[in-house]
């Protein structure tokens, strides 16, 4: 009997922790349907779907969302390209000064975010650069490169070189071998690196706030709008983001099950 109880302790604890992790999400979803009397959305007043309609009419919200999506898409494209190239150089070539490159990748990933943000601000201030969309973009590309390098490198490290050699043996030149053999093989790694970069970019507050000036990304708008209570629109958009993530993860699990093998988990929230 005691052993039975002990056997249930771990799964029970895990279940409780999962409930705890979802507590603010559950509240967020519930309050996205709240019909608050004033701006302070803190007590339950009544059910409404109006928030889901109204949200699209508020230009400061849609503007912030557009900025966030723009920054995320463009920074993902650049960071994924740059990071994949660095990953290839580090795994495929021998060159002097490799340690410098490793440091340049390692330190931004391990430094507290506030340090990266603050030091960028000193750069903008020193050169009198006006802060806005482009400075946010520069910052996001910077912090995303390292994460892409690490993800792509992991994929390259586990790759079988003989397939590329076979390509070369069959008279493919370097370029053809890369695009016909290497790239398709590392593509899953590149894709998960891009998804990670996108997720990190769209959620970033700390680094962005130092480079934003008067431009607002979605997290910046949320923070500014929630000084007193949380406007229902914030919870509406949070709920929609959650549903997208949920659908995405559901599809990934379904695809894994169909393949019949477990692909490694590559997405890490930040």
């Amino acid at each position, binding site marked *: 009997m005691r052993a039975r109880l002990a056997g249930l302790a771990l799964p029970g604890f895990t279940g409780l922790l999962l409930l705890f992790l979802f507590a603010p999400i559950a509240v967020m979803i519930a309050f996205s349907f709240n019909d608050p009397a004033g701006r302070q959305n803190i007590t339950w007043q009544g059910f409404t779907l109006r928030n889901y309609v109204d949200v699209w009419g508020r230009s400061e919200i849609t503007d912030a969302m557009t900025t966030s999506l723009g920054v995320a898409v463009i920074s993902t494209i650049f960071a994924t*390209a740059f990071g994949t190239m660095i990953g290839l*150089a580090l795994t495929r070539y021998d060159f002097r000064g490799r340690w410098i490159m490793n440091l340049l990748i390692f330190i931004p990933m391990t430094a507290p975010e506030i340090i990266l943000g603050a030091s960028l601000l000193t750069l903008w201030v020193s050169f009198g650069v006006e802060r806005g969309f482009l400075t946010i973009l520069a910052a996001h590309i910077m912090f995303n490169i390292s994460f892409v390098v690490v993800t792509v490198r992991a994929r390259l490290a586990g790759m079988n070189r003989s397939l590329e050699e076979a390509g070369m043996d069959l008279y493919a030149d370097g370029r053809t071998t890369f695009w016909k053999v290497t790239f398709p093989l590392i593509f899953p790694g590149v894709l998960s690196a891009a998804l990670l970069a996108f997720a990190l970019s769209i*959620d970033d507050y700390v680094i962005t706030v130092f480079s934003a000036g008067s431009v607002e990304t979605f997290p910046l708008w949320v923070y500014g709008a929630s000084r007193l209570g949380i406007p229902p629109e914030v919870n509406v958009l949070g709920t929609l*983001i959650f549903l997208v993530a949920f659908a995405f993860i559901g599809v990934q699990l379904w695809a894994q099950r169909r393949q019949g093998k477990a692909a490694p988990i590559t997405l890490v929230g930040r």
Partner: protein
Amino acid sequence: MPSLRRGLTPLLLLLPGGGWLVVFFAVPMAFMLLISLQQGTFDTGYQQTWNFGIYPEVIAEYWELYLRSALFAVITTIVTLAVGYPVAYTIAFRGGRLKNALLLVVVLPFFVSFVIRTLNWRMILSDNGMVFGFLKDIGLLQADFHFLATPASVIFGLTYNFLPFMILPLYVALEKIDRRLIEAATDLYATRAQAFWRVTFVLSLPGVVAGSLLTFIPTVGDFITAEVIGAGNPQVFMVGNIIQRKFLDSLDYPAAAALSFVLVAVVMALVAVYTRLVGNERLAG
């Protein structure tokens, strides 16, 4: 000239990304150092006076904030380890076919913006909110009880926000362990507790170290949690709150830059002590 081309290829591959990191990471660090050694005011302009005295000055004025930040981060790391380890263990050893699904369920809440999650915790934990308001209504708590803006509430918020940073590396380390080693220990008459502490736990140490660093480093520099769940109470401010305020509100760039570098030094020192304590040789496996 194939040899020259081969020599140039890695350079061309490294140039765009490496250049970006130099211009937008390394160069700004240098500028932050220069700015920390300037004097003046925002309105009259700052002059480069190589004022190294700023460093002892900010340390003397703000040492308590560094101490508090380090303390909050250490406690948060210990709590996330204590809570995260059983969960990572359960998923790795008992998860079966559901392993990946369970892991994704763990990270799923974290796809919702950090800011939104923290704001909702503030609402849940507010003085008359759904938890404490209820406990007050049924008479379990005194009417003047409050949790927000206390050190415990900030540590609570930090723990929630950084749990996946602990659970994922722990899971990766536990999942890799060869089960036969644990069986071998029990075959050799080790009790289950002995087998766990001498075999499983020791083999999971790389995950413990990685998880601790991934939790500690972002925690020590965090300022959102102290701002939102700490409700802006200066008594629970961490050093990040002061850095952010000085950079963005009072525009006192030299002091803010100096505070940032001291934070870097504190992080590096604590990480060095920690890795020394755990012992690098034990992590070789």
